[in-house]
């Protein structure tokens, strides 16, 4: 393995932190979705790295499933975003607080 495992983990952690930061900070729904994607991908990266490290295919299988789920999720998520935009002419999360107690 050319790249040491530690580097890989640090990169994944950084990516996850960036994604989380994006989700927490941004108010644009699309940007939040992108943040979620980045977090998922950082997890995928760890899975691939672990797979290479232990010479087992399980991790790669998981990543394939993950990619399929992500695709589905993005499809639904974007559809919802479009729908919400139609409703309120905006995709600012602050507006969508109907679940307020």
């Amino acid at each position, binding site marked *: 393995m050319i790249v040491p495992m530690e580097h890989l983990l640090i990169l994944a952690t950084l990516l996850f932190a960036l994604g989380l930061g994006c*989700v*927490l*900070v941004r108010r644009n729904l699309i940007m939040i979705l992108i943040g979620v994607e980045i977090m998922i991908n950082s997890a995928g990266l760890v899975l691939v790295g672990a797979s290479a490290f232990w010479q087992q295919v399980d991790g790669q299988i998981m990543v394939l499933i993950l990619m399929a789920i992500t695709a589905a999720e993005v499809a639904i998520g974007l559809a919802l975003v479009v729908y919400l935009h139609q409703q309120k002419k905006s995709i600012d*999360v602050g507006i*969508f*607080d*109907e*679940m*307020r*107690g």
Partner: protein
Amino acid sequence: MDILLILILLLPLAGGVINACFGSRMPQPVPVFIACGAVIGSFLACLGSLTLAAGDGYRLVLFTWLKSGNFQADIGLLYDPLAAIMTLMVTGVASLIHLYAAGYMEDEPDQVRFFALLNLFVFAMLTIVLADNLLLLFLGWEGVGFCSYGLIGFWYRKTENADAGRKAFIVTRIGDLFFAVALLWLFALFGTISIEGINAQVSGLEVTTVTMISLLLLFGACGKSAQVPLMSWLADAMAGPTPVSALIHAATMVTAGVYLLCRMFPLVSLSSTAMAAIALVGIVTALYAATCALAQNEIKRVLAYSTMSQVGYMFLAVGLGSVSAAMFHLLTHAFFKALLFMTAGCLINLAGHENDIRRMGGMRQRSPLVFWLFLAGLLCLAGAPLTSGFFSKDLILATAFAHGDPFHLGLYGLGVMVAGLTSFYCFRLAYLVFAGDFRGDELPHEPSALMLWPLYPLAILGLTAGLLNLPHLFSGGSWLSGWLGRTQDVLHLSISIEYLLIGTAIAVFVLGWLLAALRYRKYSERQPSLVGEFLLNGWRVDDLFDLLLVRPFKKIGRFCSQGVEAGLIEGVLNGAARGCTDLGMRLRGLADGKVSAYLQGLVWGFVLIVGWFLLRALV
């Protein structure tokens, strides 16, 4: 024979129930026939079964009403001389009054209800008379209360009538409570509520217990018989139709208290304190009611107060220990008071439905016949010599005199005074109603024949019923005392004392008459004096009760419903509910619907958990 005895009770019950259920579906005169037939049938059955009652009487148990643990109450009849003479009077007078009522209520559209209630009343009254245990007696006791309620408020469209009925029900029920407690106590003591059983076992009791129970019974009797202090309902009860006043509030129901005390006499007589209390209640009521009668303006109210006063005499007799004197006066009074009420009904009709004696006058010209009938009744009531009222009242007073001690002599003195007052108000009534010219402006409404002819037998009975218990002085045999098996009630006074007593009675009667004649022979419009006002309102007892009982009751009611129910209980509940709501309102701030806030919470929660585990691992 048994069947006759059952029929006495069953006929009025059946009549009442049939009329109540189907009366309104029958063609008009049929319910009236049923009602009158039932009572007359009952009277005949009573006549037929009279022989059963002689001696120790006859006991008949129909079925068990209530049985639980060692408590048992039967539907059972006790037909002894006391019950028999009372039954005979009740059914007899009731028959005549039913016939009278058939005439009196001719134009009344709601006749069926009237006759159903009247029949049920007779049934309940007979239950009191014939019951062989106290619980069954209590059934009749409350039953007459209910029927009286329904009949006083018969013309319910006027709220005053309905209110008078309610007052009668509630005030008499206060008395019933005492009776009920006495019943419970007697059962707890003897394990039985049979009248014979109790009376047979009383001798072993402690005197204080007997006194307490007797006083309870006395209060019970006071309620039904309108004696002090539970008397205020009777005058208002005159709101009912006149036949009702005659039957219930003169001849039968108000004497139920006397009957009860006679029934329980073996128990009551054991306590001299209780006997004195009974005598006192009697004489106080007699005096009270006689004074009230002096100032009344409505013909029926005068009669109502006179009833109260006469029942007071009966109580006095019981308190003096003379059951036969009490029963004697009860019988004679039933005859002449029923007569008086029914003729008063005719007079009211003749005066054009006018109740007020100030607007009567000259009624003799309108109907001499009614005049003579009413006068017969009044003479009996006033105790004119040789009428029945004279003999029965005299027996009571003589019995008081015969006791000889200061207390009883005092009672005698008061009794004589009441007799004088009675004579006075009787003749006041007579002069105001009959003398002079008619002062009203209504046209007469002639009483029908059906209303008149039941009056003749009553008038004859009223004038001659003295024969029932004629004393030795008049060469009589005191038949009633003998029939009741109470020969000890027969007085043995010296001839001179007897003449003295009779002389006093006659003197008092004449005195009352003369005074009344002086004052009322010529009618003059008078402003009622302060005393008159006071007497007119029955010594303002109603106001006193209102102040002492009704208002506090209402006040507590308001306190309970507004203070406790709406204030305290609802307050606590609403407080708890509001507390929960407030807590929720505070917590809802946390869920503001912002996705980022939720995510932050998620992250911070995660950090906290991880931090906690790290801390645990490190420390």
